[in-house]
């Protein structure tokens, strides 16, 4: 599922806003990253999917840990 499509499947229960794809900052092991992710257009609540967390994010974590 693309990010846009993913964003459309959710709404923010905190503020009732829609989700759009925005740049989200992450940090780990002294490294900073920016990733395009769905997040609430209103309050900025971010969505990290299972696929991302157990896939690309986990891979990146492992690489950084062994650096």
């Amino acid at each position: 599922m693309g990010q846009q499509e993913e964003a459309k499947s959710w709404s923010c229960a905190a503020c009732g806003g829609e989700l759009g794809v925005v740049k989200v900052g992450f940090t780990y092991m002294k490294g900073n990253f920016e990733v395009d992710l769905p997040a609430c257009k209103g309050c900025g609540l971010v969505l990290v999917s299972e696929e991302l967390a157990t896939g690309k994010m986990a891979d990146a974590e492992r690489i950084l840990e062994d650096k």
Partner: protein
Amino acid sequence: MDQENLREWESKCIQEEPPECTAACPIHVDARLFVKEMGQGDVEAAFKVLAKTMPFPGILGRICDHPCELRCKRGEVEAPIAIGLLERHCVEHAAGKNRIQLLSRRSQRVAVIGGGFAGLCAAWDLLKKGFLVTVFERSDRLGGMLWELPESLLPREVIDEELAVLTTLKAEVRLGISLDGEAFEDICREFDALFIDREGVAGCALPLGRDDRGEITTDPATGATDREGVYAGGVTRMSGAWSPVNEVLQGRKGALSIERFVQRAQMVAGRENEGPFATRLFTSIAGIEQDPRVIPADAGAGFTDDEARAEAGRCIQCECMECVKVCLYLERYDGYPKKYARQVFNNERVIFGAAHTKNQFVNSCSTCGLCETVCPNDFYMGDLCLQARRTLVEQKLMPASFHEFALQDMAHSGGERFALCRHEPGKNESAWLYFPSCQLCATSPAEVLSSYRYLRDKLSGGVGIMLGCCGAPAYWAGRDDLFRETLETLRQEWGGMGRPRVVTACATCRSLFLEHLPEMESVPIWQVLEEAGLPRTTCAASGTTVAVADPCITRHDPETRESVRRIAGALGIAIDEFLLSGGKPECCGYGGLMFNANPKLAKEVIDHRTRAEMPPPAKPFVQPGGWYRTARQEGTDTAYYRTGVSDHDYLAYCAMCRDRLAAAGKRASHLVELLFPAVEGGDPAGRGWISWSERRANRAKVKEAILRELGEKGEVTMAEHEGITLFMTDEVRRRIDERRILEEDIRQVIHQAEQSGKRLKNLQAGSYLACHQPENVTFWVDYTPVENGFTVHNAYCHRMKIVGVK
């Protein structure tokens, strides 16, 4: 690790030591590589291997007397590899020419007196070293005894062709020289150094020291005669001991001495292994089947191409790899301890702080010690890895993810939900102190309580109880501070109890106590039960056969291993021993916190122990490459020894072994479950896996039960989220457990989301998704509120911190 430590580590691992053939060869030809290339049919590559070490390979390759074959390991199985015949085939068929790499030219002049094979080899080496060489020969041609060999073996044109190299290298050759004392003195004056071929000057009256037989005497280590700058080598025809490869050695030895002499360098330093020597390489020939030597159909003509290839294919490509063969961890990183020690050193020192590429490696070892047991030199990777972990912790470079979950579990065991130290109910002194261990309480709470009651019945003087963790996770994580602190707490509590004898139910606890708290006398529960008498029980496994899965920590504890077997026998259980039994138990993947630092490897390890694997082929393949390594490439998953697999139920006496075996789908029980069954007539081996959350709850149950008996109330502070009820399927429960997410973490996420309202709604499913980051990990839970609680559909986590939307 400093340089000196590295050298110590490196010297213990002998994998890189030369094989017997190379060590037996006077000039150390890499016969193993040569034969490997021949086995692959690459004659040109094989020739290059010979030419790297051999002078006049076209000659020596044909006539070498191959002392290498006498020490070939294949010869211990049936017949050695025919290295000599293979060399002959190679030099007869290779198109490759002698390409000699010359070092820079030197101005010094060296005379070689006598153009026999030793003299010519000295000339070859001296020319390569850049000296100006003049060869003096009495007869009208160079080569001496080479001309007397059968032409079928060494064709005359080969001698001419090979010796022509001397001219190419601009050696001056003076033939028909008469050598008397006067001529010798002239040569000595004219040249910076001399090499004398003994046969080449046989019968000449040269003013040099001689032995009773009239042979020129030399220093065996250097070839030096009694005259400065004059070196000699080779044997005379009269001695009857002419060996081509020994002539080469003698010529080479003289050439090296001459180089050192003119450079005024240390004459003997670093020459210990000149000539044949004893190698430290160990190569097991266990499991290698007989494979008869290939006999050339036409003996006079030597091997055909096919025969050469088949003969070379018999080579077992000697190497040690004993530890790698039995350890999936060592195998998966594609090296061996010596290489690993260098990598760990580089990780720590050379590229300090820049690229710690071995972090996961040093944290993946189970520290089980099997490597040390099978290593001919007792190389213990665990020690190397634990030291490296401590260094990473000191340097503040240890990634938290490698041990955090285990250390949190340890903190739970040392915290208010579990830790306890009390005298027996109704007594105020303890002659004994039961330490059932945090993990056994987590696995088998009812059995622990029942065993405690039994110990109280059987032992006099009061049996106190101590619940807590021995500190093993901290020890494995390189957290010396935390480990010491844990031990100190235990030591003080034990002191407060009047220094009773400690009864341990976990072999890891006992092993750490023995080593780090030597003042604390401890005894395994199995021994106590044997002495006090076993409980009368109907054992579920009675009449069956089990395989005893010894925990790796009992490697050096044969008493415990035997004690467990005796108890099993007394319970009417027959025992099927694993191939690697006795002092060679494997780890379950929990040890050393492998499960935490490298869950993928830990899973492979336990899968290997619970599923039948293809054993390695006992016979090497025709394509050599190390019989073990080739076997590995051929294997579907792993080709390391079929060690720990039995079709019978497993009987463990370590809680983690039991749980990991059970989680991998193997029927496995713990001995305590057989001795003190929670359910009469139950099936402990059928209990299956236990989640991390359940483990914590079980520990708490043990503490609560003991406090109840003591009439005490536990002072446990309940957080608000703890009251949340969760519903989930077994599949979800298993998945989140494998992701090391506790139900406690899920409750916190839901509590937080429900309180703050910060959650996302899935428009199709109607469920909520929320996250919470209590410490380093961010947990995500997909859930739906239902009556009386929450249904959990999924949970996952990551360690990257969300900074926020840009």
